[in-house]
């Protein structure tokens, strides 16, 4: 039984067909990379999995449960957390407050109009834990909007981790980053995968990152699944080379 089972999902926006029946299955503990040229439908694919919008056709099963029509916030409570291609954080709040809000929701407290001292202390302990894991301990009191790009990405990942996810969806985590920042984020992702045994699906353009991290790779092209396999298989795949290099095969 796969952990995430996407079966022939399709999505059209008016006359524009973004995805034409893509299937994918991810095993527990796997790190899957989704790659493809610009406009291949990668982000649309992520949006379907995370519940940003519903597919025009096809089904999505998560941990044995059909979530195809489930609203995004319910998928979060089942253990799906995601980050976005353009960082989505709470810019005018501090790093600590960003993570605290995520921790409160994860604890099931989002409707509580009051919180006791001990519950408050427990949440703060959890926040410190996550900040340390994401390497943001020193920057807890800074406003997220003032942080460097790389740290903002790290803060967003920290918020996703605060949800105690079972599946982490990362949309181009290293987009717009320099070498040093890319290295830091890659290390963080590998730690989450190796040490925390988190199942991760990530969209990525940086081949170094992909070949460094991924167990398996799925290649999308023009809304279709072009190929799937281990990094070595994908590197040797002629259709993939053609899609990336324009033609030649």
């Amino acid at each position, binding site marked *: 039984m796969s952990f995430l089972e996407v079966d022939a999902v399709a999505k059209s926006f008016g006359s524009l067909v973004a995805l034409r029946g893509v299937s994918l299955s991810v095993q527990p503990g796997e790190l899957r990379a989704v790659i493809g040229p610009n406009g291949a439908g990668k982000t649309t694919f992520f949006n379907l999995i995370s519940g940003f919008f519903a597919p025009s056709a096809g089904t999505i099963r998560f941990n044995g449960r059909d979530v195809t029509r489930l609203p995004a916030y319910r998928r979060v409570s089942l253990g799906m957390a995601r980050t976005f291609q353009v960082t989505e954080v709470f810019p005018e*709040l501090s790093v600590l407050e960003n993570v605290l809000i995520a921790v409160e929701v994860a604890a099931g407290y989002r*409707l509580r109009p009051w919180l006791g001292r001990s519950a408050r202390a427990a949440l703060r302990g959890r926040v410190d834990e996550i900040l340390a894991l994401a390497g943001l301990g020193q920057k807890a009191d800074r406003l997220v909007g003032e942080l460097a790009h790389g740290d903002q990405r790290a803060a967003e990942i920290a918020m996703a981790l605060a949800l105690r996810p079972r599946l982490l969806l990362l949309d181009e985590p290293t987009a717009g980053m320099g070498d040093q920042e890319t290295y830091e984020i890659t290390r963080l992702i590998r730690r989450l995968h190796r040490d925390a045994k988190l199942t991760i699906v990530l969209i990525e353009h940086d081949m170094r990152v992909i070949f460094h991290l991924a167990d398996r790779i799925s290649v999308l092209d023009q809304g279709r699944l072009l190929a799937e396999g281990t990094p070595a298989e994908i590197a040797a795949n002629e259709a993939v080379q053609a899609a990336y290099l324009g033609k030649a095969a």
Partner: protein
Amino acid sequence: MNGAAVVAAIRRPAETRWLPLAALWAVLLAVPLWLPLVGGYTALAGRVLVLGLAAIGFNLLLGFTGVMSFGHAAYFGLGAYGAGLTLRYLAASTPLAMLLGTLLGGVAGTLFGLLIARRRGVYFAMVTIAFGQVCYYIAYSWNDLTGGFDGLRGFRRAPIGLGPLVLDIAGDGPAFYYFLLGVFAAAVALMGLLLRSPLGHSFIAIRENERRARFLGIPVERHIWLSFSISCGFTALAGSLYALLNNFADPLGLHYSLSGEIVIMTVMGGMRTFWGPLLGAAVFVVLQDYISSMTTNWMSFIGLLFVVVVLFFPRGLLGFLPRRGAR
């Protein structure tokens, strides 16, 4: 990112924070002593508290949830009518009048909010105006019940009996001012606690980034609805106090021009701060009182001041204060 926010990132130690707060309460407690000396009268301070509370309630929605309503006068007016009708037709009980006034406005807001929580931005603001105007015309036309355009008269706030003690708030002395201040204090304390709670944090999360909030597991529409309902409840409580203050309720308390005034008070005072709306209400009420004794055209002066504040202090008069976070 502007300078104020940068400074705000470095938190001040807790012991220096209570000082301005203590000063504020000292000033409010001493109103009957100092206000007559500067040519004011206590009922004016009562107006500041009542409209300040209405604006603080409204600001839960605008400043802390990031949602704009242009119809909060509807809940203020319903609160006033609820209290007035209770005193006139049901019982000479001030607490009951406040309770039923708050319930009338709060429940109306809760039901109406159910219909509109999916709307955003201009659409949300437009339907809130529309609902306010519906309430206005009902109060205006239902002569038998509400007194129509002349307003609802023929009721007086009643003294409150506490066992053997009687709190005589019926007169025009400072007793009623202190009663208002007590209710105001309890209400803002409740609001302060709410904003420090996970529920309050979820509202701030929606203000900051709706998409992130949704993908943290917050059902955004439902929480906007909650914020709207709670906000309407606070504003309705203020409205019921307004009826007690004036022994009178009129349709203008429901009119969209009052909704606009609540917005002006809030934005002028500083919508990202907790106390900004109270300061905005104070400036508004005092200027209105002072200028309207000289010219009927007082609103154009307030409008001018509003433009100046928005141009030069875009974060409001209290905008220099450290921003209020989610702790």
